[in-house]
């Protein structure tokens, strides 16, 4: 069955690397996370799940040893194609079709797994965690970054009545269910079911980004997949109301959007 989020990411792949998206709160948050990641000396295989157009993967590879194998998996076909073009002739980077629920790699083959703002799109949380567990080596490491329960609360409060009106309750709630927004405790509990709880930790952060309406609209490409069930003739009117509602949030600093980021970390125990 087609996943509307994946399909829409694929359809909009050519807009994904637009400056507006890259300079948006999501682009900046992604860059900050990516530059904070460090690869240990003994690592041989690095996996980026939901690698998109391969931006973070290439940046990681560019500042790492050349004998490390980098693998990116991405379910959206056109995003994958852009990633393949981006990495060019680099032989230590490969891009594969896959997703958290189905990682096309051998068991216990990955030393370090990371993912930036993709895990909240999984369709089966437990299957995804089991799959991560399967591909990681026994002493593997992991850093998963994904949105938390309170992400974007300013926008959600303003736009929910509008989406509810234009989509109707069934489609609106279906679109909400397309993303999973866990609390820190819920994510910790989830991963502790499959991994040794002593190796798992979860941190959370809140960062409020201020931007213009157009600045925020630049990253709308990231959430369009949730609105595909809306009749096209309603879409323009809905967009206009959403834009008006977001404008109403304006402050002297701009329109606020708070990213609630969860970081789920797996580290081997010293003993």
């Amino acid at each position: 069955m087609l996943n509307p989020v994946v399909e829409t990411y694929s359809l909009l792949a050519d807009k994904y690397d637009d400056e507006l998206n890259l300079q948006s709160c999501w682009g900046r948050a992604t860059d900050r996370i990516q530059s904070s990641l460090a690869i240990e000396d003994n690592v041989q295989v690095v996996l980026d799940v939901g690698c998109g157009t391969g931006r973070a993967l290439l940046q990681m590879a560019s500042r790492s040893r050349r004998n490390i194998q980098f693998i990116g998996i991405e379910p959206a076909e056109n995003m994958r194609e852009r990633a393949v073009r981006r990495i060019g002739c680099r032989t230590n980077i490969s891009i594969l079709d896959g997703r958290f629920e189905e990682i096309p790699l051998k068991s216990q083959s990955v030393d370090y797994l990371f993912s930036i703002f993709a895990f909240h799109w999984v369709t089966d949380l437990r299957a995804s965690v089991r799959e991560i567990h399967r591909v990681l080596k026994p002493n593997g490491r992991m850093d998963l970054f994904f949105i938390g329960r309170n992400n974007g609360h300013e926008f959600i409060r303003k736009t929910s009545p509008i989406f509810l009106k234009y989509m109707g309750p069934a489609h609106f709630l279906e679109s909400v269910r397309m993303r999973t927004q866990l609390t820190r405790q819920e994510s910790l509990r989830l991963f502790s079911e499959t991994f040794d709880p002593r190796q798992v930790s979860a941190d959370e952060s809140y960062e409020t980004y201020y931007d213009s309406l157009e600045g925020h609209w630049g990253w709308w490409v990231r959430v369009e997949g949730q609105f595909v069930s809306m009749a096209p003739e309603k879409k323009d009117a809905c967009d206009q109301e959403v834009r008006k509602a977001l404008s109403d949030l304006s402050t002297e600093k701009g329109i606020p959007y708070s990213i609630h980021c969860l970081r789920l970390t797996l580290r081997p125990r010293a003993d």
Partner: protein
Amino acid sequence: MNLIQEKALVVSVLNWIKEHKLPGNRDAAEITEEIDLITDGVLDSIGLVDLLLFVEEQTGRPIDLITVEPKAVCVVKNLCRIALGNQLSQSTDGCEHAEPSCGDLLVAGG
């Protein structure tokens, strides 16, 4: 319509909402069966999904969302009626009257 059952569900749902409501906006005491949970900022969209799951657990039956109006799921009184399979609005003359939809209210300037 089983009014006793409906009233019990309303109480149970209101208690759930007071426990799970978003911070700010409304005090627990201000949350009644009449207010619009989304427009009034009591719950966000994820909270609404959780609320519907709670109601379905309470009644043991799924809520048919396909045919209902937005207003019906955001107002506790209406939600509980729908969840129990009761008619949304019934006047004293015994005739059923449709609740105004969210769209109707907006057109009317509400």
